[in-house]
């Protein structure tokens, strides 16, 4: 058996091996990597830094893959030399590994500019998983962090570090960001957007020295100006790792020189990836490297034929929520180049096309890159734009939903990272009966790289697969186009604390009456009440803690726990009703008293005179616990429903929920307080309590499902609390428990609440207590109102007609 040795366990080398495995290769394959990790997706390191993914989630091939394919991995071993004459590579562990064919996939290293002081402690590069872990360890809230380099990698590092709470400054030598991919206008727009999101951007700034005594304390610029920094990330570009090739006597210029078959100057040595130089060009993005791997795989297995002819540079990424796409030329001063552009500064959208000889020559998209595949196809195929001239910047409105998919030729690459064409996907769908995105990813690897083509892949799958299964996801709203589950995950992983941050980074920056209250709820529940409260995102009821009526007046419902009151309270309610000329006093269906027709400006005084807490009858939150008389007085009562109901209300009051949350406690199965049509009901029996959930008596009537039966009142209260917190964390905003329980199924709800492992239940209760500790009676805001919250503004001057 012939021995194939691959030096480098990165994306390019392993992707090439994957291609080799598709041939009947007859090799014994060894992969040597100097990192100790299995093959991972380097593109997603920024997601690890930003906390969106764990290190495990970016693994491309786990150790079983090596075993299953008979590949010997040698990890943590650096190759120190190659003897091409003897066909042996030397490892840093003293090993000598013989080969018949050798593939160099040594990648590249971060370029560290020769700035005085760069060797100080807490100066890092951002290139590997270990670099990422080191940065995660050293980052943290308030940490003053400088990123040197405002290119693609630098901006991704900046975003990740900001998510970790760092106070980030990007220092960039050129006058605008990402000048290799964007023109000045596009770069400036991106810079403004980043500034708005709280990252300081210093362009046209050259770093002259890294300051500090041992560890970094700041930077000095060429202008003499200095800034403070306790952490510095250098992202000033990458350099091919070509030294090994040079020492082995291969032809090396900037990178290891390869021909169109990926052969080096030695007949048994090949090279692939960022370490190579092809026709004078070096490649740093993943798509052309995957292409190189396919060509190399053919050549090394004796199927020499396919050629690599280079690639137009193309990059698509999302930086701090801003979509950026760039492909082809960016210089518009070339003779014969026409510029077609569109700019909407308010929307943060910039599109610019360079057209030459009626063919697309280059494209820059900032803020909206949804149309990138059209431009990629025009570029790679040299399409004559004459019939498209009227729709260059925006596609013509689609006549049918499948049109954009139908318009893509079979040979066109859909997933640039993994080099998967439309034809590949169609073939795989028919061959393997694929009907879901997960299955498609697994089979073809499409959309497993940067993920930016996942929308297109899904549309393609939908158009082609006979049994396509739609992801049952609905987006929150047009302002923030993610399903609620995804929004909750983003808020949690990105540690977002305010509605405006979520909208700025992941939405349109504005929001509306649909998404703002939902986001206000989500940031509150995820942070257990530790969010930044933004009243502008709340409905008027939650700004003034009263229920707006059809004439703009409000209703006031004080809290009467369990529906129990006192003569003194009733006297105060009567006095208030008279003093403020309340238009109607009404007993509600939930055993409370409602004062209707109150002026907004009277609210704080009324609350003060009542001396009772808010009944929260106006909000998506805990409303009340309705009780029957129970064993204290009732001849049939078996349980003390009043005491249990009052305690339940105390434990949950003042908390927000996805939708209003009503409860009932009854002392016997006669169910006088209708506990079985409440969101949570406690039904007393002789010696036990039934906890029922998901009941309704509104537009529809639904009998609540039995969650669990327990013996003691304390157990009953705790079961209700566990369900309550589970609903708060997992239901969509405006989803009542009866829809929530039906959507999940009561078995699943039981399994994840009352039957969950003790530590899961404890964690739910801990988060509930944490939220409860931060909550307070909303009517206390009368003591510290927001500006002009209750009173109408009095004009400083008036005029008379």
């Amino acid at each position: 058996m012939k021995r194939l040795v691959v030096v480098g366990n990165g994306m390019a080398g392993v992707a090439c091996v994957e291609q080799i495995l598709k041939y009947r290769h007859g090799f014994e394959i060894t992969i040597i990597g100097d990192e100790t990790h299995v093959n991972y997706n380097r593109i997603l390191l920024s997601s690890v830094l930003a906390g969106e993914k764990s290190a495990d989630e970016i693994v491309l091939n786990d150790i079983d893959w090596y075993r299953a394919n008979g590949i010997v991995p040698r990890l943590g071993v650096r190759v120190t030399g190659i003897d091409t004459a003897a066909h042996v590579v030397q490892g840093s562990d003293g090993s000598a590994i013989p080969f018949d064919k050798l593939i160099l996939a040594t990648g590249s290293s971060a370029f560290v500019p020769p700035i005085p002081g760069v060797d100080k402690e807490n100066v890092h590069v951002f290139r590997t998983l270990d670099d990422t872990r080191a940065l995660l360890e050293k980052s943290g809230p308030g940490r003053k962090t400088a990123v040197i380099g405002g290119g693609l990698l630098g901006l991704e590092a900046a975003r990740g570090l900001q998510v970790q709470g760092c106070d980030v400054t990007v220092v960039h030598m050129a006058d605008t960001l990402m000048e290799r991919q964007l023109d000045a206008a596009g770069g400036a727009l991106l810079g403004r957007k980043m500034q708005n999101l709280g990252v300081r951007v210093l362009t046209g700034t050259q770093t002259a020295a890294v300051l500090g005594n041992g560890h970094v304390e700041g930077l000095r610029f060429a202008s003499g100006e200095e800034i403070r920094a306790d952490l510095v990330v250098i992202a000033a570009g990458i350099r091919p790792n070509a030294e090994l090739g040079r020492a082995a006597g291969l032809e090396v210029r900037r990178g290891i020189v390869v021909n169109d078959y990926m052969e080096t100057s030695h007949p048994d040595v090949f090279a692939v990836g960022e370490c190579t130089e092809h026709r004078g060009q070096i490649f740093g993005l993943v798509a052309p490297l995957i292409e190189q791997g396919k060509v190399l795989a053919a050549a090394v297995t004796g199927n020499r034929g396919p050629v690599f002819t280079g690639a137009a540079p193309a990059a698509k990424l999302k930086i701090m929520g801003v979509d950026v796409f760039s492909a082809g030329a960016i210089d518009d001063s070339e003779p014969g180049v026409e510029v077609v552009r569109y700019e909407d500064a308010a929307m943060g959208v910039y599109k610019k096309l360079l057209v030459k000889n009626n063919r697309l020559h280059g494209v820059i998209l900032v803020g909206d890159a949804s149309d990138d595949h059209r431009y990629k196809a025009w570029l790679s195929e040299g399409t004559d734009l004459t019939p498209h001239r009227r729709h260059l910047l925006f596609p013509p409105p689609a006549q049918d939903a499948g049109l954009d998919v139908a318009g893509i030729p079979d040979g066109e690459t859909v997933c640039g990272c993994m080099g998967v064409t439309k034809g590949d996907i169609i073939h795989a769908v028919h061959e393997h009966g694929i009907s879901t995105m997960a299955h498609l990813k697994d089979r073809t690897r499409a959309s497993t790289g940067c993920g930016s083509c996942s929308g297109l892949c899904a549309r393609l799958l939908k158009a082609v697969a006979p049994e396509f299964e739609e992801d049952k996801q609905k987006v929150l709203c047009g302002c923030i186009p993610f399903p609620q589950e995804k929004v909750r995950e983003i808020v949690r992983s990105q540690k977002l604390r305010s509605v405006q941050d979520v909208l700025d980074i992941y939405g349109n920056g504005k929001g509306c009456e649909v998404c703002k209250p939902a986001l206000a709820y989500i940031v509150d529940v995820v942070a257990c009440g530790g969010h930044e409260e933004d009243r502008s995102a709340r409905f008027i009821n939650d700004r003034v803690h009263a229920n707006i009526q059809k004439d703009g007046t409000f209703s006031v419902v004080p809290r009467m726990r369990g529906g129990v009151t006192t003569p003194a309270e009733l006297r105060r309610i009567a006095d208030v009703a008279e003093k403020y000329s309340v238009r109607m006093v009404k007993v509600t269906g939930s055993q409370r008293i409602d004062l209707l027709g109150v002026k907004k400006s009277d609210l704080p005084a009324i609350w003060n005179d009542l001396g009772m807490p808010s009944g929260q009858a106006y909000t998506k939150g805990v409303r009340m616990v309705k009780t029957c008389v129970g064993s204290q007085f009732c001849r049939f009562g078996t349980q003390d429903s009043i005491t249990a109901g009052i305690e339940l209300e105390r434990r949950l009051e003042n908390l927000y929920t996805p939708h209003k949350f009503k409860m009932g406690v009854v002392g016997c199965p006669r169910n006088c307080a209708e506990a079985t049509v409440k969101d949570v009901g406690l039904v007393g029996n002789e010696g036990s309590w039934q906890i029922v959930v998901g009941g309704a008596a509104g537009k529809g009537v639904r009998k609540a499902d039995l969650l669990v039966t327990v013996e003691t009142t304390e157990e009953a209260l705790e079961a209700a609390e566990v369900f309550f917190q589970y609903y708060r964390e997992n239901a969509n905003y405006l989803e009542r428990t009866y829809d929530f329980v039906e959507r999940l199924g009561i078995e699943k709800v039981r399994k994840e609440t009352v039957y969950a492992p003790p530590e899961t239940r404890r964690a739910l209760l801990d988060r509930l207590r944490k939220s409860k500790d931060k909550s307070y009676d909303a009517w206390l805001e009368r003591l510290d109102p927001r500006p002009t919250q209750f009173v109408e503004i009095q004009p400083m001057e008036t005029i008379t007609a």
Partner: protein
Amino acid sequence: MSWIRITAAENIPPREGRAVQLGGLELALFNTGDGFLAVENRCPHGGGPLADGIVGGTTVTCPLHNWRICLENGTVQRGCAGGAPPVRTFPIEVVDGIVMLAIDEARIAA
């Protein structure tokens, strides 16, 4: 038409609205976060208090039945199909931290 001083700008928090009565006219003043805008405080649908609505960019949504009004030109962006008359808008400016409104005296009386 004359400019009159209404109130300190900080009395209208970002992305919120506040009502002010001027003669026979009730106005809703908004701080969009990027600037200030003023309209009549009355939804053309059911007369709802627009100042109490949720602001999204330069629109406000009436708290009663979710009609959405453009604060720049007063047009109804979402409401009944038949089309409702636009809400009246008023020139507004902040000078030295004070919100100023341009008001036609005759309109107040009207």
